[in-house]
């Protein structure tokens, strides 16, 4: 009999009598009897919070992959970065957590200004002038980028590198069923997109990933030239941590940047809620999906923030809107602004540098193990793919016995969607963050050596 209802039974009676009713059921009398639930819901009765907590404790014990049991070397868009107490506490302030979309700016300056600061940070990290207030995740941000490209070019052919995260490509195919896009996937060769192998004539977008899902740093200049030659938009999906040391999307000439913002203060959280990063050039601003916050003044000439360019959005433009997005991931965007405020310029560079150093240290030592070889000879940032002598799933399972989450199985990740990778069942994708110590990495190498022997 647990709930959060304040009414006493006397109050309920008084309110019913004010309405000329004698029971709560009568409130529903105008619903046709034929469809009314006569027996009530087929759900267990309510439980107290401590009872429900006991149930959840049992559930969580069955999650063997929690951080206290396994050291995480898994990535593929979801990384184990430091999230300090100050970010967790500020990001869980109930004023941010329990607010709605800032439709009444006079009482929503807190969220609006935080989004404005977030947009500024994402604009700088992407090297592009316009960033929106967030989308659901990296994959759905890419869907919106294709919609933008289709709108800008009035074309429907999308040339997508197979280096784009396999799940993201899966999501693109799903939504293309509605928009009718012709998605052409470009295979990888030695970890690099073989752009020459496809005809990009009439493309709306050239879609590349930096690094690509195997961790490889490709020369995005090739994709840029292809987009220019075909008058298509260059859409670049990038690891946002990379912007701490590597060239930004804008520097590579991208028209649209999308990214998975999870590394900015969000826990692994079994995949969500994460944060879809989206930035673009000035030319595309009228086609921007979702919300954007702008600076203005109030009637007393004080600085104020407000959601703007609203005429693009679904509640006004309806079937001609640039997107159907309404609720986005604002709380994650606010958290990202706090995390980036904590990291600052130097901190982001440091996180990126240490992640790259740890990854190269692990790569070098792992490749000395007999039977373990790199999948690609190309440069990488903080993630790489290794070919192992046994099935990747078995290797990873065995490593867990020694407390190491050794990475992800590429075969499971791609579900057969990457025909260009030879024998993916023996490939492990490994990621390193600034949280991994030399001792942990050395242990990884020892365990891998033992497992593949």
């Amino acid at each position, binding site marked *: 009999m647990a*709930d959060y209802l304040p009414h006493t039974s006397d109050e309920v009676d008084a*309110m019913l009598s004010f309405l000329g009713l004698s029971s709560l059921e009568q*409130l529903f009398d*105008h619903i046709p009897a034929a469809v*009314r*639930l006569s027996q009530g*819901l087929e759900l*267990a009765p*309510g*439980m107290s919070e401590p009872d*429900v907590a006991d149930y*959840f404790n049992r*559930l*969580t*014990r069955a999650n063997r*992959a*929690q951080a206290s049991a396994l050291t995480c070397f*898994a990535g593929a868009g979801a990384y184990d970065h430091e999230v300090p107490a*100050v970010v967790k506490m500020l990001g*869980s302030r109930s*004023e*941010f*957590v329990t607010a709605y*979309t*800032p439709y*009444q700016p*006079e*009482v*929503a*300056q807190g*969220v609006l200004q935080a989004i404005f*600061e977030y947009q500024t940070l994402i604009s700088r990290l992407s*090297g592009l002038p316009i960033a929106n207030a967030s989308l*659901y995740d990296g994959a759905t941000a890419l869907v919106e980028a294709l919609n933008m490209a289709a709108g800008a070019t009035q074309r429907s052919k999308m040339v997508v590198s197979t280096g784009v995260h396999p799940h993201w490509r*899966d999501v693109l195919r*799903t*939504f293309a*069923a509605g928009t009718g896009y012709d998605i052409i996937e470009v295979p990888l060769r030695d970890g690099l997109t073989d752009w020459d192998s496809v005809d990009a004539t009439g493309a709306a977008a050239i879609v590349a990933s930096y690094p690509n899902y195997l961790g490889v740093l490709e020369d995005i200049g090739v994709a840029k030239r292809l987009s220019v030659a075909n008058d298509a938009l260059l859409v670049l999906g990038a690891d946002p941590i990379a912007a701490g*040391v590597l060239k930004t999307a804008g520097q590579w000439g991208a028209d649209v940047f999308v990214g998975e913002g999870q590394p900015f203060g969000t826990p*692994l959280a*079994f995949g*969500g*809620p994460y944060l879809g990063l989206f930035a673009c050039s000035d030319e595309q601003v009228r086609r921007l999906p979702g919300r*954007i916050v702008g*600076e*203005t003044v*109030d009637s007393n000439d004080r*600085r104020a923030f407000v959601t703007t360019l*609203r005429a693009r959005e*679904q509640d006004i433009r*309806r079937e001609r809107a640039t997107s159907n997005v*309404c609720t986005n991931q604002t709380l994650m965007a*606010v958290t990202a*602004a706090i995390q980036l*405020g904590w990291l*600052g*310029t130097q*901190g982001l560079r440091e996180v990126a540098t*240490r992640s790259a150093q740890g990854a190269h240290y692990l790569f070098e030592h792992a490749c000395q193990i007999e039977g373990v070889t790199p999948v690609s000879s190309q440069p990488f940032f903080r993630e790489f793919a290794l070919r192992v002598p046994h099935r990747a799933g078995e290797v990873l*399972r065995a490593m867990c016995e020694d407390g190491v989450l050794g990475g992800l199985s590429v075969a499971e990740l791609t579900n057969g969607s990457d025909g260009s990778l030879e024998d993916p069942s023996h490939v492990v994708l490994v990621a390193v963050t600034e949280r991994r110590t030399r001792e942990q990495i050395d242990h990884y190498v020892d365990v891998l050596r033992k497992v593949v022997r």
Partner: protein
Amino acid sequence: MTAAPGGRAASAPLLGHETEPTMFEMSVPGRSSYQLRTTDVPAVSLDALIPLDHLNSSDVDLVELSERDLVGHFTRLSHRQFSVDLGMYPLGSCTMKYNPKFCDAVAADPGLNSVHPGVPAELCQGWLELLVTLEEKLCAITGMSAATLQPAAGAAGELTGLLLMRAFHSSRGDVRTRVLIPDSAHGTNPASVTLGGYEVTTIPSNERGLVDLAALKAALGPDVAGIMLTNPNTVGLFEEEIVDIAHAVHDVGGLLYYDGANLNAILGAVRPGDMGFDIVHMNLHKTFATPHGGGGPGAGPVAVSKRLEEFLPGPKATRASSGAYEWRRPPRSIGRVHGWHGNAMVLARALAYIDVHGGDGLTRVAQHAVLNANWLRRRLEKTLPAAYDRMCMHECVLTATNLKNSFGVRGLDVAKALLEEGFHSPTVYFPLIVEEALMFEPTETESPQTLEALAQAVERIAQRAHDDPESLHRAPQTTPVSRVDEARAARHLISTEDASSRR
């Protein structure tokens, strides 16, 4: 009812009035707050690891702040923000009910939130059980057969539902081009229909605020893929002819899509599945009280009837005959609609909420939500009459046309004046079919004293409309900022600090 302390405490929140500098304005070169783990990994120069043509020759300039400044900044920003925890938020259609702290605590457990989404199923059995259990309970609540938990918000659920509709028709070699939508629908409906590759046909409402059944029947044909309905609709009224509507749409081979924005009103009273709906999305951040987060994250699971199960997005958590949980792709799956498994932490909160309430508690939730809305409608009938004067569900749409005609005071003025009174505004000018609409959704978690305080605040505003209408055009003045110049924001877009400093 008296506007007792409990009621007043739920209004007149204290908000910060001083303008807060941006974090960039606060930045001082040389300050920092980050602290990282000592790793002892060899600090090899990046030049030796990564080719120069990939390296950025300069740093991306972010900010340089002390931790103390960071905390001060975001705490002061939070003081400039209205929230459910601070006061009543009767924003119609948004179901801004109290969000139990217990559910947040559940989601903060590292046993859930430190799990990587890509690990093999045997390492995350607890998570898979949670997902399967939530799916079963959502199906019990809606009367459906199976559900996907992947969609990250209501609009994502809508588009997922339309793609399911498309896959269903295509699988039968059936080409259909139109989807029907009432003129009172949320804007996300038509926007989703376009992205689903269909054309919108708008169905007018009748004088009772309900779907005009004759117009609906006239619009039906073999080219209709389905209809999207919100029930109760956005006017807060139950579509009483739903059984006839369902028959008519099914008779031409169309499907019925249930927009779950207003599911809170009918928990335990009536189920979409029993009304004849084939596809149902739920907004967990509304009905199941997961916090709105200032505009997300939400979660928009989609439940379907038996004949649509095989098309659901995958992979999907499933209980195998062995009792273990595994990922399975439905045989004719439309594919993924999210990068991983959906907004998992939101799903965990929703399950905790459902478990605390149980079937009996959820039924009371709807009853009290409908009780509060009807009490408020009746209480305000002389000040702001209802657009449709009869029993409503969880929200009531009132109209300010009398104030507009008599004193030139518009619905927006009333909404802004309520902010001065310490209440969040209702939804204004929606649905589009009601003139000077003010849509109040009190939710079940507000006490009668708070409702009375809100009613008295509305009455004071009506009195001001009579005495000093000009003052209402200038409202609000006691909030952190007064009415903002939205036209200027759109005319000269300044969406970053850099655009601002270029001016």
